[in-house]
C-alpha cells in the first residue's frame, strides 16, 4: 500500500472513530553506505525505511501511534491505539492541531534521489588510499566510509494541511590509526556534502591524517584553571549538547534555567546565536515546516549576549501566550513532538585562530571532546569532558595534549566567551566558530 492509499484509509478510520482532530506524519528514507578496508569494500548497505505516525486529540488529550506496516488492518490499529493512548493522558491544556501557516519558505527538491554505487565505492577506496599515501605512519584506516542519504517527510492533518518536502546529502568519513614510537594515535574527520559531485576525499583523508599526526607525543597537562579555546567543531558539539536549555518547554518545566530570562543578558556581548533552518551550509537538516506543520524561519536566539527568544512549539507557545517559532520537531517518525532547534549556529567573530591563541597566552586548544552524551547535563549545565588538543604557550601551539578533562557549567561558559574566531563551520545541525573562554577547570596530572 502506498502512502496516499494508507492516508485515505486513515481519513476513513478517523472519521468512523469520531476523531475530528489529527495529523499523519510520514517519512521515507533511503541510504547507501560503503565501507572500505584493506583496499576492498568490506561492507555495503542499502537501507530503505518507511514510517508513519498518527497523532490525534480526543477530549483535549493527545495520543500517538506509529507503524512501518502499510496495510488496511494496520490503518485500523493505528487509529485505535492512538485513541487509547490519548485516553491515558491527563494533560489536557493547549493540545493543538495546526491549521497552517500563511506561507512556507519551500525547499528546492532533493539534489539527488540516488547515487551510483560505483561512485560511492570509488570514494570509499580513495579515502583509504589517500590517507595511507599521505603519511607512512598511517597504520590502518579503520573506517573509510562514503554514504548517500535521501529523506522525504510529509504531514497531513484534519484541517486539510498537506505538506511534503525531500532532501538528500552525501557524506564521507575517515577514522584512522597512526603509529609512532610504539604508541597509537587516532585521527578522524567527517563531512556532509550537498551533492555527490562535491565529495572531497582529499579534504577528509587529509584532515584525519593531520589530526592523528598532530597528536603524536601528546601527554597530559597539569591540573588547574586555564583559558580554553574550543575549535569550531568542538564549540559546535558543546552547543549541541546544551541546545536543550533554549527550549521553552524545558524552561516551563524547570529543566532549563532560562525561564523568564527572555530580553535579559545571558551571554557575553560577542555572542550571537541563530536558529536557521535554511543555512546554506546545512544539508540534511534544512526544513521548511516542523513536526506540527508550522512554517520554520530564521531568528536570533541570542543577539549580542541578550536572549531574544526561547524556542517554542505550539503547546509551549500557547502556554506562554506566544506564537510557535516553528521548533516543534520530530526526531524521527516514531518520536513525539519536542521543542528542538532546526540549525543552531553561533555567529562567527572577527579573529583568526592564531589571534585567539595570542589573546589567550597560556591556554588549552581543544580539538576533540568525548562523553558529551553522558558527562554533559543540559538540565544542570554541568559538564566534565575527556578532551584532546594542544597546549598553547606564549600565544602559540607548544605541544599536543591528551588525557585531561575540561569541566565547568554551560550557563557560566556563555558569559565567559571573550572572543570568537572567523572560522565558522557546521556539524550536522550545529555550527560555531572557534571560541575563546576566559577560564575552565582542567584535570590532568
Amino acid at each position: 500500500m502506498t502512502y496516499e492509499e494508507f492516508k485515505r484509509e486513515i481519513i476513513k478510520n478517523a472519521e468512523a472513530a469520531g476523531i475530528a482532530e489529527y495529523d499523519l506524519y510520514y517519512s521515507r528514507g533511503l541510504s547507501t553506505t560503503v565501507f572500505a578496508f584493506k583496499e576492498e569494500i568490506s561492507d555495503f548497505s542499502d537501507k530503505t525505511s518507511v514510517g508513519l505516525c498518527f497523532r490525534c486529540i480526543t477530549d483535549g488529550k493527545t495520543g500517538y501511534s506509529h507503524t512501518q506496516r502499510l496495510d488496511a488492518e494496520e490503518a485500523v490499529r493505528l487509529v485505535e491505539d492512538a485513541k487509547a493512548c490519548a485516553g491515558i493522558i491527563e494533560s489536557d491544556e493547549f493540545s493543538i492541531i495546526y491549521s497552517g501557516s500563511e506561507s512556507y519558505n519551500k525547499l528546492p527538491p532533493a539534489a539527488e534521489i540516488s547515487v551510483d554505487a560505483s561512485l560511492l565505492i570509488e570514494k570509499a577506496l580513495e579515502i583509504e588510499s589517500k590517507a595511507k599515501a599521505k603519511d607512512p605512519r598511517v597504520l590502518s584506516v579503520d573506517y573509510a566510509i562514503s554514504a548517500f542519504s535521501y529523506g522525504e517527510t510529509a504531514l497531513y492533518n484534519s484541517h486539510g494541511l498537506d505538506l511534503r518536502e525531500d532532501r538528500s546529502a552525501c557524506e564521507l568519513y575517515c577514522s584512522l590509526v597512526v603509529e609512532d614510537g610504539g604508541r597509537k594515535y587516532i585521527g578522524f574527520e567527517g563531512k556532509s556534502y550537498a551533492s555527490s559531485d562535491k565529495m572531497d576525499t582529499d579534504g577528509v583523508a587529509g584532515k584525519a591524517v593531520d589530526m592523528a599526526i598532530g597528536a603524536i607525543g601528546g601527554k597530559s597537562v597539569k591540573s588547574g584553571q586555564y583559558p580554553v579555546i574550543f575549535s569550531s567543531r568542538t564549540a559546535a558539539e558543546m552547543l549541541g549538547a546544551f541546545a536543550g536549555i533554549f527550549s521553552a518547554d524545558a524552561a516551563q518545566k524547570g529543566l532549563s534555567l532560562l525561564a523568564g530570562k527572555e530580553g535579559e543578558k545571558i551571554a557575553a556581548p560577542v555572542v550571537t546565536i541563530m536558529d536557521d533552518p535554511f543555512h546554506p551550509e546545512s544539508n540534511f537538516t534544512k526544513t521548511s515546516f516542523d513536526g506540527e506543520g508550522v512554517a520554520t524561519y530564521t531568528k536570533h536566539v541570542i543577539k549580542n549576549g541578550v536572549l531574544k527568544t526561547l524556542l517554542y512549539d505550539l503547546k509551549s507557545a500557547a502556554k506562554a501566550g506566544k506564537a510557535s517559532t516553528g521548533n516543534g520537531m520530530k526526531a524521527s517518525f516514531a518520536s513525539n513532538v519536542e521543542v528542538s532547534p532546526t540549525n543552531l549556529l553561533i555567529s562567527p567573530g572577527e579573529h583568526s585562530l592564531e589571534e585567539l591563541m595570542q589573546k589567550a597566552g597560556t591556554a588549552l586548544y581543544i580539538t576533540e571532546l568525548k562523553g558529551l552524551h553522558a558527562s554533559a547535563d543540559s538540565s544542570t549545565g554541568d559538564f566534565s569532558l575527556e578532551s584532546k588538543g594542544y597546549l598553547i604557550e606564549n600565544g602559540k601551539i607548544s605541544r599536543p595534549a591528551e588525557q585531561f578533562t575540561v569541566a565547568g557549567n554551560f550557563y557560566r561558559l556563555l558569559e565567559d566567551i571573550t572572543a570568537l574566531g572567523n572560522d565558522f563551520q557546521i556539524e550536522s545541525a550545529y555550527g560555531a566558530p572557534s571560541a575563546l573562554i576566559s577560564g575552565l577547570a582542567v584535570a590532568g596530572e
Partner: protein
Amino acid sequence: MLIKKAIAEKILGRALSTGGDFAEIFAEDSLKNSIRMIDDKIDTAISGRLYGAGIRIYRGVKSVYATTNDLTEKGLLECAERAAAVIGSLKADIQVNLTEKKYPDVHPVALLPGSVDAKEKAALIKAAYWALKNYSPEIVQAQTSLLERVQNVCIANSEGLFTEDRRVYTRFGNLALASDGVENQSGWEAPGRMRGYEVFRDEIDVEEYAKTAAKTAVTMLHAGNCPAGRMTVAIENAFGGAIFHEACGHLLEATSVAKGSSPFAGKIGQKIANEKVTAIDDGTIPNAWGSINIDDEGSPARRNVLIKDGVLQGYLVDRLNGRIMGMESTGSGRRESYQYAPTSRMTNTYIDKGPDKSEDIIKSIEYGLYARKMGGGSVSPATGEFNFAVAEGYIVRKGEICEAVRGASLIGKGAEIIMNIDMVGQNLAHGAGMCGSISGSVPTNVGQPLIRVSEITVGGR
C-alpha cells in the same frame, strides 16, 4: 513465524544467486509502548510498531546488507535482489533447505504489555512520580516513565537455520531535578529487565528507585565541586561496572579486535589485568536486562569468561568477524533492530566477586573519591581511551567517606586502568543500561562489586 519456510528458502536462494557464500534473513515485528509523567501529569503516551527485515549476504569477508519494510514474498525478493546485485551478476538461484529449530525460552514472561490495563500502568507511574516529587521540597521537577517492548524476530540462514524468538523488555525511568533557584542538579534511576509487567509485582519497587533518584539530586544540590587530578577511586557496585564496560569490554569486542587495532588484540593467554580481576559476559542470566535466548544471528546465548584471574581468555565474537579472526561465534551478534547489520556486542558484563571486604576498601584510601553512582561513558576502541560520568561522588579522607562532590568524570586508558583495579569486593550487583555502537543501541547490563582503582584521572574542577 513472520516468514513462511518455503518463502524464506526462496529468498535465501535468490540472495545467493550472484556468488555469495552465505545469506541470512532477519525479520522483525516489534511493539513498543511508552508512557511518561512530568509536571504533575501524564503527558505523553506513544504506541508503535517496528516492522521490516534485513537481508545479509557474505562473499568471503565482504558483507552486503539491505533492508525493507515489505515482508511479502515480492518485497523480500526485491530486497534480496538489491543485496545480491552488489555481490555480482545474476546466475541461477541456489537450493537452500531450512530446518525449523526451537531454542528453549529461558527468560519466562507472565504478563505481556497488552495484558495489563492502562489504568494499572498509570497508577504505577503516578506512585513513583509522587514518591519522587514528595521526597523533598527542593525537588522542583520529576519525570517517571514506563517503557515496554516486545520484539518478535525470525532468523533464517543458508546453513539451514530457521528459528524465531520473542524478547520482552520492561524498563522504568525516574528522573529527579533538584533546584535552589540558581542551580539545578539531577538524579536518575532506570531499572530494567527482560521480563514482563510482573516485574513490578514481585521484583522492582519503583517507589524505592524514585526516592533514590531524588536523594541523589538533593545530595548533589548541596555538594561542592569535585576536585581535579589523579587519585585513588573506589567505585560502588551495580552500575559502577560501567568502568569495565567502557575501559575493557568494548576493546574485547571482535568489531575492534578483528581490525587489529584493539590494545587487547593478540593477547589471549596473557595477563592483561590485575590477578584479582575475573570478568564475564553472560547472556544466559534468566530475565536479566542484557540477556538473550539467541543472538541476532540465531546463535544461542553463552556465558563467556573474558578474563580469569587477570589472564585474557577470549573475545566477544560475531559471525562475520569470526570469519576474519578464524574463531567461532560466542553468541554475541547483536543489533538494535532489522535496520542494522549485527556485530559483536556485550550482554550482561561484569567483574566477578573478589576477595576484599567493602569496609577494607574504603579504609585503605588515605585521600580519594568514592563513586557511589556512575553515569554513562564512551571509549575510543583503537587507543582504549575512555571516559565516564560520576553521578554521585564523595571525598574519602583517612579511610572515611566524607562530603558529597558533584560534576566529576573519570578518564583513562583501558589497558592501564584494568591493571590498576587492585581491590575487588564481594557485593556483586548489576545495573541496566543502553549501549550504543555501530549496530545501534542494545540493552546491556553492567556489574561489579565495590572495587578500588589505585590511580585514575578525576575530571573535577
